[in-house]
């Protein structure tokens, strides 16, 4: 198919809100945008394992240890689904991984904050996975087929992630005064970064319009953020905790939830590498990758020898 016919086919798919599949012709910019978005998403799953993995060995009950292990292991699976989806666009996983450990790729900025107490396992599950769900449910209808299908699988697991976080906080909130304080402190620290997970305000998000025209993105950053705030306001009551934002209100005219100002300079700083854990997170990924090189080489060499033996 030449470019003109291809473009016409692509435009028709967009107009009909249909799915683009790997073999379909697509504009280079669409492909590039998807590779960037899907690989960033995959990197976030992988780097996002670290703050929670930090507590697997110290989980305060065996039941919580099992749930946390299952959760962090799920995130590795999410990374795998997403790298596979990105590979269908012609970029190999190795290349994406190399870009990540070389510090050339982005991942969700929130994972550059430290998980310093057990209550952070609750706040991360409730707020961070909660925000991820708000972001990801509309992506189940994204125009690129493999991405949308990966998101369907991922979303099924994310609701368990959020629920386990909520349960951790609820248990702490109903526990001793010290436990309740631990929970409140964690919510205080993770609230603003979780709101910033939706990306910059709409008037400062230049790529959003194109992504919406391509049916990748369905709702604007501010729209999703406002929905998320509404959900959290309801749930924080059940938790018996508070959100560290006295400006949250429901705007009767716009029918939208509003929140207090966010420190976007901090967001940009952390994104630029000045967060508390940027170097640590990358170094951990790099050392896992480097330390594992001989294992991957051994597996490849063994597979090649087996194949040669079969062929002979």
């Amino acid at each position, binding site marked *: 198919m030449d470019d003109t016919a291809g473009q016409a086919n692509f435009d028709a798919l967009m107009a009909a809100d249909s799915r683009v599949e790997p073999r379909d012709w697509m504009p280079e910019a669409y492909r590039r945008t998807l590779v960037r978005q899907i690989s960033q998403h995959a990197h976030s799953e992988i780097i996002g394992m670290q703050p929670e993995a930090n507590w697997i060995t110290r989980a305060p009950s065996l039941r919580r240890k099992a749930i946390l292990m299952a959760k962090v292991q799920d995130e590795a699976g999410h990374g795998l689904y997403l790298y596979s989806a990105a590979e269908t666009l012609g970029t190999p996983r190795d290349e994406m991984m190399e870009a990540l450990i070389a510090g050339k790729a982005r991942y969700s900025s929130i994972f550059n904050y430290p998980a310093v107490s057990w209550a952070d396992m609750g706040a991360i599950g409730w707020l961070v996975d909660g925000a991820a769900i708000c972001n990801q449910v509309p992506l189940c209808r994204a125009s690129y087929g493999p991405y949308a299908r990966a998101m369907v699988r991922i979303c099924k697991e994310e609701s368990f992630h959020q629920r386990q976080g909520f349960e951790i906080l609820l248990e702490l909130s109903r526990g001793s005064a010290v436990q309740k304080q631990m929970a409140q402190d964690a919510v205080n620290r993770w609230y603003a970064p979780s709101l910033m997970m939706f990306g910059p305000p709409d008037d400062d998000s230049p790529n959003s319009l194109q992504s919406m025209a391509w049916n990748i993105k369905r709702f604007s950053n501010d729209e999703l953020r406002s929905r998320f705030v509404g959900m959290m306001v309801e749930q924080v009551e059940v938790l018996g905790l508070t959100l560290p934002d006295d400006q949250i209100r429901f705007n009767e005219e716009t029918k939208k939830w509003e929140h207090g100002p966010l420190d976007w300079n901090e967001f940009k700083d952390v994104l630029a590498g000045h967060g508390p854990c940027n170097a640590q997170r990358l170094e951990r990924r790099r050392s*896992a990758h480097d330390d594992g090189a001989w294992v991957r080489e051994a597996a490849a060499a063994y597979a090649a020898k087996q194949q040669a033996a079969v062929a002979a």
Partner: protein
Amino acid sequence: MSESATRITPGNALRPEDIADRVHDGTAKPSDEVAEYALWLGDDALILAQRLGHWISRAPELEEDVALGNIALDQLGHARSFLSYAGGAWGKSEDDLAYFRDEPQFRSAHLVEQPNGDFAVTIARQFVLSHYQFELYRRLLDSADPMLAAIAAKAVKEVDYHRDHSSQWMLRLALGTDESRRRVEAAVKLIWPYLAELFEDHPLVDALPGIAVRPSELRPAFDAVTGAVLAEAQLEIPSVPSASGGGRNGRHSEHLGYLLAEMQVLARQHPGASW
């Protein structure tokens, strides 16, 4: 309630919570000896799960983060079942036993206490332990203690996958590259001294005829199955002296204290708290 509704059948997989319920309502109460034996099995699984859990987010490839995570989760599940049952003898929960016992009260073997080392050490440790556990649980299916048999019935299927996973990796590492071969040979040498302890008989087993599995009886099957894998991998069984062991009597390696300190720290900061 009819008898069949409360009978524990091996086919009917029990969750640790179900076992805790039965212990609580008095329908399953182990003798002190049975509980002590359940600690052997539960502590091996718990300490190994703790070791393996450390790999999650650090594995050589994402597939192994998932695979080692799966094995850790299975082992943790078995540990919770055995400890929940054991606790029935003394009115203790799985968490009382995991978090509020000190080193001498643990019954783990030195093998599972060994540090992760590199991936080859972890695989060599796993290879030995999962083949040992498979032979053990397979025989425990016939135990006269229905709860031990029921836990083993669930565990044996999972451990069968663990032994396959580690056997496959033994082959890949031994026959992969020069470096991987060098590393796996070193790992086998490092791990083999701790093998003998697993198969040592003990007065506790004499006190539990028909209930516990005699460790020495597992050795021929273990040697045959692991020997076949090692032969295919062209790995020699190293001639290294056996370490003296003592884990079943509460004498542990230097490593266990650090492991427990990390595992127990938060729970002990908040005694009596619920999570």
